[in-house]
Structures are given as C-alpha cells and as structure tokens.
C-alpha cells in the first residue's frame, strides 16, 4: 500500500492540532513551513482573481508542504451555501496541474468529522484500535478548547503588559507545549500552568481601557498572518480584542459544551440575527460566516464592547453581504464599526494606520459620552 504523508494548511494552530491527531493514530504527517510573504505570493500566483485570501493562502501552504515531502492533503468541507465546500477541488486541480502529479485529497466533513477521520485512517492504512481513536479524539477536543480559552485570557492580559511582547512570548510557548503534551492530564496541567503564568504577567494601569469585538470570516479572525497580528497591535494601543469565532465554530462537535451547548449558543446568536432577518434566514443562515458576523455585531453593544472590527477577504460573498448590515448595526446601536478587506490594504503600515484612527475615534467617543 502507498505510504501517505499527510498535510494540512495553517490557520492559527490548526495544522499543529491535525498533526497531533493524525500522528497519534499512526499516520505520517508534515506541517507546512511557517507562513511567510513567499507563501502568500505563491498562493496568489497559483490561485487567481476571484479566489479569496484563505483559498490562495492555503494553496501556498500546501505547495510548500508538498515540496517538503507531503504527498496527500487533508482538507475540510461542509455543504452550505457558500463555495467553501468546493475549495478542495480547486486546490487539487491547481496543485496537480502545476506540479504534474496526482495528489490525493482526504476530506473531513463538518457535519460528521469523527466518521470522516475514521475513513481517512482506514484509507491511509494506519493501524489503530477504536479505543485509541476515542481517547485521542477526546484528547484533541481538550487541546482545542484549551487553545481557545488561553487565547481569550492572553488577549485580556496583553493590553496591560509592562514588558511589550511578554504575553505573546509566554502564550506561544504554552500553546506549543500544550499541543505536544502526551496525555489529557498533562494537557490540563500545562493549561493551568499557562493560565497562572499569564495572570502573573506584570500589568500597568490603562487610563481608558477599550474592548473591541473581532467579527468576520473565520480565517481572517483566527489566522494572525491574515490579519497582520491585529490582536498584538491593538494591545499596544491599550485595546483588548475578543475573537467572536473560534475553532469550535468550524464544527458543532468541537464545542466545549458538546452539541447541546453548541445548539444553545446558536439559538442565542440566531436571536440577535433576527434583528435583521426573518427567522427562517436567521436559523439557516445564508452561507459561510455571514450570519455569525451579523449576529455577533448585533450583540456587541449589549456585551459591553466599545467597537466592532469586521475583517473579511476580497470576494468573500457572505461577508460582503454582512458589510452593509454591520454599517446599519453601527448606526442603530451607536457603536463604531469598521469593515476592512484585508488584501486591499496591502501593507501592514496602512492597516495599522486605519486601526489607530479607529481607536482614536473610540477614545473620543468614550470621552464625550462616557459610553
């Protein structure tokens, strides 16, 4: 049987998680190299106009992973209204055309991820028992939840750090240790230690602390290279950022509170989305994360956020639709909001200039109105 060497694109730490999951169950796996401008350029060159940034960036990641020895790709797909479910087909065709050989793609389905992973394990011929699978799966869920919780805590701590960069340095080290941990108990231990270390970071007082909610398409919200490390930059301006989306939003089963908790959360968000659409639309959504963008935007004021940053990629259909809704939310709820197409900015400096101007606006408003 052919030896499959798997890979998976970068999105925050997702590729590391996949590495843990598949190597623990007997597969061979190569992570794509660290994302750089070269990855972005390659993705753009192989991709095309009309493809969004996540698609192009992932093509770049996969290209370099294959150059480094991977010979097959794990991809995810769901069937919902946006074109995302078809991306793996475009990636396969582009890479096969360019590289000149066949590249098997194994798909993890959003609705039944466990069943999809089991199928991949069978097709790649890896040896595992069902008990091993259940244990590793459970352990992977613990790691994913820990990543989300640590990210939230780091974002709370970072704005007030006395030594610039200390939070990020501690945070990234904990994450890597946590992902490498060999048992659920060890993972929990590292997570608790990580929380302790983060809470012990020396803090200064921030004169006017601000909180901003990051909404938009999941790749732009989670992947630091897609959003020019917005969490770190906002922290230098004394602003706490909260991601509206997390890994759990990729599939219901990943929710820390299980499927029931996911459904409860969905209902809450659907309620907010109902401010702008009929219930049928609010429940089913209209593709991608468009409904989530609107729902999170609609709850921002009530949850005490001072502003909303909406990040999305050029040609992202659901979030282009969500953009005028975010504008409306800003008017109705009297909360500053800014929609940014990340590629259009083109440079870190320009992006940061816009963010700085936005923060000035938030401070002015808070000074005048106290809100």
């Amino acid at each position: 049987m052919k030896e499959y060497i798997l890979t998976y694109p970068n999105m925050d730490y997702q590729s590391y998680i996949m590495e843990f999951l598949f190597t623990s169950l007997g597969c061979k796996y190569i992570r794509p190299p660290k994302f750089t401008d070269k990855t972005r350029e390659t993705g753009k060159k192989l991709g095309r106009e009309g493809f969004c940034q996540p698609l192009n960036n992932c093509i770049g990641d996969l290209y370099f992973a294959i150059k480094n020895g991977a010979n097959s790709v794990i991809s995810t797909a769901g069937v919902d209204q946006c074109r995302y479910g078809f991306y793996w087909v475009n990636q396969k065709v582009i890479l096969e055309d360019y590289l000149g050989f066949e590249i098997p793609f194994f798909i993890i389905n959003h609705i039944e991820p466990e069943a999809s992973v089991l199928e991949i394990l069978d097709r790649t011929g890896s040896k595992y028992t069902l008990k091993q699978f259940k244990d590793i799966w459970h352990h992977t869920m613990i790691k994913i939840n820990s990543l989300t919780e640590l990210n939230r805590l780091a974002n709370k701590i970072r704005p007030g750090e006395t030594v610039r960069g200390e939070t990020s340095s501690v945070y990234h080290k904990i994450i890597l240790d946590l992902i490498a941990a060999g048992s659920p108990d060890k993972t929990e231990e590292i997570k608790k230690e990580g929380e302790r270390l983060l809470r012990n970071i020396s803090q200064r007082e921030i004169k006017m602390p601000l909180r901003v909610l990051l909404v938009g398409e999941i790749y732009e919200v989670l992947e630091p290279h897609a959003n020019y490390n917005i969490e770190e930059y906002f922290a230098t301006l004394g602003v706490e950022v909260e991601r509206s989306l997390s890994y759990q939003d990729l599939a219901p089963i990943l929710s820390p509170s299980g499927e029931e908790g996911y459904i409860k959360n969905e209902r809450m968000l659907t309620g907010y989305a109902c401010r702008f659409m009929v219930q049928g639309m609010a429940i089913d959504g209209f593709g991608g994360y468009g409904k989530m963008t609107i729902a999170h935007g609609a709850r921002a004021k009530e949850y005490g956020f001072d502003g909303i940053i909406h990040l999305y990629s050029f040609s992202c259909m659901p979030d282009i639709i969500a953009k005028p809704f975010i504008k409306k939310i800003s008017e109705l709820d009297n909360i500053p909001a800014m929609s940014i197409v990340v590629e259009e900015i083109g440079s870190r400096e320009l992006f940061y200039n816009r963010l700085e101007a936005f923060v000035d606006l938030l401070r002015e408003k808070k000074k005048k109105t106290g809100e």
Partner: protein
Amino acid sequence: MKKIGFIKSIYYYLINPYWKKFFSELGFEVIVRQGERQNLPAKVNTFENELCLPMKYLLSQVGDLMEEGVDYIFLPHVPSVKKGVFCCPKVIITPELIKLYYDKLPSLLNPLINMYDKSNRFKANRDLAIDLVKPLNISEEEVEKACRTAEETQKSFDKFLFKSGLFYDEAEEAFNRREEVFPSQNDTKILILGHKYTVHNSLLNNNLINEIKYMGVTPLAKEHMFLYRLNLNLKKELNIDTDVYFSEGAEVFRAAYLGGQDNSVKGIIYLSMFNCGFDAVMEDIISKRIMKKFPKPYLNLVLDEHSTKANLLTRLEVFLDIVKGRK
C-alpha cells in the same frame, strides 16, 4: 387591478415564468422592470460596491419600480430552486438587503422558495402559494388552478426555450405570441457558459449575445443542450469526487463537457461577473480540466458595470477570427 412588480435579475430567470403566470392568472397586472444600460455605474454606485453587478442592479431597480408605482413587489427568499443544490448567498438574503437600503417599500410578497429537500416542485410551489396569498382573500381553489396553469406554462416554456435556440427574453416574446421557431442551421455554434442571469440578460451582458449573432455565428446556452442525455459520469471524467452543490454549477460543468465533445460547437465563451465567487471557482475548473481535454478556442470574459462595449467587442472579434480560421 393590483400591480405586482418583478425585477429581471438574479433569481428572475430561476423561478419564471411560473410566478409571473401565477399572479396574472389571479388577475394581477404583472410589471417587469428591465432598465437601461445607460448610466449604469452611476445608478449602482450607491450600493455596497463589492456586491456583484446583478445584485447591485437588482437593488437599484427596486427604487425604479417604486417610482413606477406598484402595489406589490415580488421578492422571494430563494435558498434553493433544485433538490440538493443551493443558490448563491446573495440570492438567499435579497429581501433583507433591500430593506437595508429602502425605507418605505410597498407590500412585499416574499415567500421562502426552498427546494433543497423537495422532490415535487409543483406541490412545494402550490403549498407556498396558498400561504402567500392568504392575506389577499383568494380562495384555495383559485390558487390551485393558477398553480396548475403556471406549472404547465413553465414546462412548456422550458421545452420551447430548449427547442427554439433563442435566448430567454426573445424566447418569452415568441412563446407568448405562440410563434413557431426553428433553431438556426448555422454550423458555427459558440457555447456561452455562465449563470442564467448573465447569459440571458442583455443588459447585464452588454448585449453580447446579439453582437455574437451579428458576427455570423450562432450562440448557444446550456438551456439549449440536452445535458442529461449521455451516461456522463462527470465525477469520473474530471477526477472530482464530489457533487456540485451550488448555483447552476452542475449544469455549467455538464454543458462545458458536452460542448467540448460536440463537433458542431466550435468555441466556448465563459461569461463571468466580476466578484462572483462561483464563476471564479467554476471557470478555473473548466479552463484547467475540461478545456485541456477538448482543445477548442476558449475565452473567459469578466463583466462588470464598467465593461465597455468596445473592449468586449475587440476580444470577441479576435476570438471569432480564431474560431473561423480553424474551419
């Protein structure tokens, strides 16, 4: 007589003539807005710029329809018109987008047309129609009768469109006049791929179909092809192991493949709309997989509100020179 307005964009071609016939059978005066190409950039630039042209055009036409004075606008939510296939996100959320931009709308009739898990289109539409016109005090019997007539009209029109070789608007006129039309015997056929609202709407495609005819070749749309005749396993042929679940995608791929195989199709043009996510995805697969299998002249034209006629015609002329030169 109450006036009900329809706008000729995006979902119009997916759900008609069924719904137009339904309302005219119930005694409504059906008004269809087409609009003009002149001043299109100015007309559409008040709306979210990154939306595709068909969507921006639809939003601009709502205002024009209101000026014309209608009692109702037919503005459905259309998550799906075919089992197992979704429409584009923009099509799904159209009424909500319109409410963002317009304050004082006339009464909207906005049923939720969702055939995603429905096998029986007639039954689904009929149940929808009964609920929709309840507030208008129309009896269920009348509704049922109007639905039957509408369904027959839809089926006859689809057959007529297929046989005549005409594009939608011309076909509708000929159909309503009960004309008999024979497809062109010209043996230089050019297949035009793309969404139905791009290919069949002369305003959105800048009258390209007629320009192609004036250049002495016969344009052909996927609606003129018998897509399911051959036992074509597209998944196997293209080595793509998944169903195409979006927006006319399956038909576009099949048409491209069959057009590639068909010797009477001398060239293929893909009309994309700028910033259409699905066009980008489909066109890439067609140019990389299908056109490699059948090396025929192939052209991708990307359209938006700023596309100038001169630019498009130049490219078209060069393409058709290549097609004719190959004969």
